[in-house]
């Protein structure tokens, strides 16, 4: 039976969709059978980040309304072993799907995959309720900023209240140079305040922007973010890999910060 993970954040623009795409791709590279589901009705983006926007015929609302079979709506990403995308609808709104319908959809498919990843819309309204309805656990994405962490705390509270007990934190876009000079909250600062388990840290890396521009993954690539995403995928498959909080001593730091300053 597959594990159902919702990727959520509360605040928009912190990297939920990029994270869903890269974790999905990374898990499939680890020989897991994966489906990524875009639950953001009206603002379809996961397909674009993955570079699959030209292959969409049917979407999640068509499947739920019974206008097509699931198999017809699924897009197989041919670049990877066993990776499927169920795209969102661009022309429908949040109310075209109910939490019960989402739950049923997930129950129908959970035996066919090892991992079911749900890309959640920003906000705490119905789109959020739909996305978390069928989830076993969550990955809460935040950046080291006051507003994003505040929203993450709110989201964790709502997840706990909905009976989702396993909520892991992913800190995205950490600027190592800024942490070092005391102008960005560190991994310790954030985890101390939020008091949840840390799944991983993605350093701010221009390679993410470059990869997303091209509709390609960064996971597994030879760059800081690529390695960090792959570590997260390995952790999700049960491997014990210590989380790098990028607070190493001088020599290492110098090297890393020089990478960031090069442009």
């Amino acid at each position, binding site marked *: 039976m597959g594990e159902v993970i919702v990727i959520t954040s509360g605040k928009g623009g912190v990297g939920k969709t990029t994270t869903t795409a890269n974790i999905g791709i990374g898990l499939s590279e680890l020989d897991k059978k994966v489906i990524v589901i875009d639950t953001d009705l009206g603002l379809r983006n996961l397909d674009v980040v993955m570079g699959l926007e030209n292959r969409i015929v049917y979407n999640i609302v068509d499947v739920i309304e019974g206008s097509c079979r699931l198999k017809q709506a699924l897009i197989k990403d041919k670049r990877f072993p066993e990776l499927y995308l169920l795209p969102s609808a661009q022309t429908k709104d949040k109310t075209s799907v109910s939490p019960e319908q989402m739950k049923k959809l997930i129950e129908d498919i959970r035996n066919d995959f090892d991992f079911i990843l749900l890309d959640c819309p920003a906000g705490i309204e119905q789109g959020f309720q739909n996305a978390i309805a069928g989830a076993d656990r969550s990955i809460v994405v935040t950046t080291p*900023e*006051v507003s994003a*962490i*505040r929203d993450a*705390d*709110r989201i*964790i*509270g709502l997840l*706990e209240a909905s009976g989702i007990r396993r909520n892991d934190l992913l800190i995205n876009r950490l600027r190592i140079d800024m942490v070092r*000079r*005391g*102008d*960005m*909250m*560190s991994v310790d*600062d954030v985890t101390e*305040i939020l*008091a949840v388990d840390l799944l991983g840290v993605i350093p701010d890396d221009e390679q993410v922007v470059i990869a997303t521009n091209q509709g390609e993954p960064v996971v597994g690539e030879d760059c800081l973010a690529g390695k960090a995403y792959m570590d997260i995928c390995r952790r999700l498959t049960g491997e014990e890999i210590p989380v790098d909080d990028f607070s190493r001593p001088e020599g290492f730091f110098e090297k890393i910060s020089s990478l960031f300053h090069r442009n």
Partner: protein
Amino acid sequence: MSVHSVSVAKERLKNLLVSDRMQCTPETVCRLEGDLYHTVSKYVEVRREDFDVTVTRTDIHIKYMGEKN
């Protein structure tokens, strides 16, 4: 700027989270803390600066430091 901005961010964030978690204004949180201190100090000898209230998502923790040597 001489003060590093992280300390400001952490302070602001902590206050925000307490009001969010308790769904009330920072002033109300302050009053609650005062009332809790008042109540506890009726039974336990504790100085205001040794008394601390922490609000997590599910609990309110009251911490006080006892007699110091």
